């Protein structure tokens, strides 16, 4: 009469003697695949401020601000408003320099709403970058000046040859 019912109970009974398929989560963790979209990571030095990620995002999550120092763009702000993020990875795909990447950190809950937003760029990073650019510009200018001087020194000699 209740054959099917007993068969079903037999199936569940068998599982008593089989290894468990569950994992005790906070202590034990399963490995995550490499393509996993967790918390975003931003590499300040790689970013060239091309705005590709800003335009690729469906929800305008990324806010990028730049400042021009010696004709070079310096990223002064890179805010990632995570609460609107769909974790679709379109920004990562759009980035030509791999400056934005998603890590495997998926525990993103916060107690307060303002903590959700990630402000990637630190003021000292900006200062350092500006310094670097200035230094590089100064070095370049010095090199150019030296080169010009060299050329100038050569020029009179050339002129002298031509004149003779």
């Amino acid at each position, binding site marked *: *009469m*209740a*054959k*099917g*019912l007993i*068969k*079903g109970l*037999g*199936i*569940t009974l068998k599982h008593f003697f089989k290894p468990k*398929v569950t994992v005790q989560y906070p202590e034990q963790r399963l490995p*995550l*695949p*490499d*393509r*996993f*979209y967790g918390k975003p990571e931003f590499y300040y030095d790689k970013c060239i401020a091309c705005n590709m990620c800003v335009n*690729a*995002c*469906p929800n305008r999550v990324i806010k990028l601000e730049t400042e021009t120092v010696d004709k070079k763009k310096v990223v002064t702000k890179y805010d990632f408003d995570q609460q609107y993020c*769909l*974790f*679709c*990875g*379109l920004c990562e*795909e759009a980035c030509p320099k791999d400056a934005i990447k*998603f890590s495997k950190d998926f525990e993103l809950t916060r107690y307060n709403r303002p903590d959700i937003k990630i402000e990637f760029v630190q003021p000292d990073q900006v200062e350092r970058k500006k310094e670097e650019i200035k230094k590089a510009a100064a070095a370049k200018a010095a090199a150019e000046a030296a080169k010009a001087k060299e050329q100038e020194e050569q020029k009179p000699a050339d002129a002298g040859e031509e004149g003779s």
Partner: protein
Amino acid sequence: MTIKTEEFLLNLGPQHPSTHGVFRIILTLDGETVVKAVPVPGYLHRGIEKLAESRTYTQVIPYTDRLDYLAGMLMNWGYVYAVEKLMNVEVPERAEYIRVIVGELARIASHLVATGAYAADIGGLTGFIYTFRDREDIMDLLEMISGARLTPSYMRIGGVAADIPDGFIEKCRRFIDYLPDAIEEYNGLITGNEIFQARTKNVAVLSAEKAIDMSLSGPVLRASGVNYDLRKARPYSVYDRFEFEVPLGTKGDCFDRYYVRLLEMEQSAKIIRQALDQLPEGPIKGKVPKVIKPPKGEAYAEIESSKGIMGTYVVSDGSTNPYRVHFRRPSFVNLGYLDEMLKGWKIADVIAILGSIDIVLGEVDA
């Protein structure tokens, strides 16, 4: 002496676990019997069609994930297929095969949820746990290839986002080999159960004519014995290269609707195995410009999703954003016949009937 009786209204939902989300049915009851049922969808409405108008063509893809979130891959596919039709883009063969593989995996995952949730609706929570155990393997596979479990955003206009990672094919084969054992277990645990059969057999019989009249699709239609599967009737992508059958029901009752899904899983596994064997080498993305700007015009494309025929209508005005996007969501259309189906059945059967249609509220409300 006669006792005065009257009909009364009962709200089933919106916060009720057996409505599979936030779905409300206003039931007019005569004692325990349903006299009238008015479905009230819209509690999960996010206006995805309207949102799409202010996004670029590529940016709509993550939103399609959130239609039928149990088979996000298929929703991606329906949308990109329509845009590809609009732009006349040719998709490389390898990309088509990858699409078939992930699409069928998503179909199995969706049917596993339908099967398990249906068992839970009827009162056997164990079945739910068992199907979810096996669905987890598919979730792992999808996570491996796309980086997300439910919202893959994996398909791109003209191909797919990334190639198959190492170890995916082996893992996929292992799952396909294991699936028949799992289905046998479900048959023993759920299908063969006398209580389950008593609750579902001959309940809400849907005739083939009526199903066609109401433009139902998917397993709900096929359970009534109508042989109409887009993958066979009007093959898209590379479906004409695979050998598979379209499982049909005989009666069109709740049991048939449930059982057709189990049989479909077997067929999907068959398709995946063939696709893995035939998988060609080559590029995964066709020649698509970086900024997608389809010519002025419109396109309508249909695919067979896990719930039925998923159609996407895209209108382009020549700019980077679609002028209009419309989704024909099978869950929503299949719900159209709910009132007729529920009439005359007891309130306990309401749960069984609603579960057998297998709706996903993300798709119903869009």
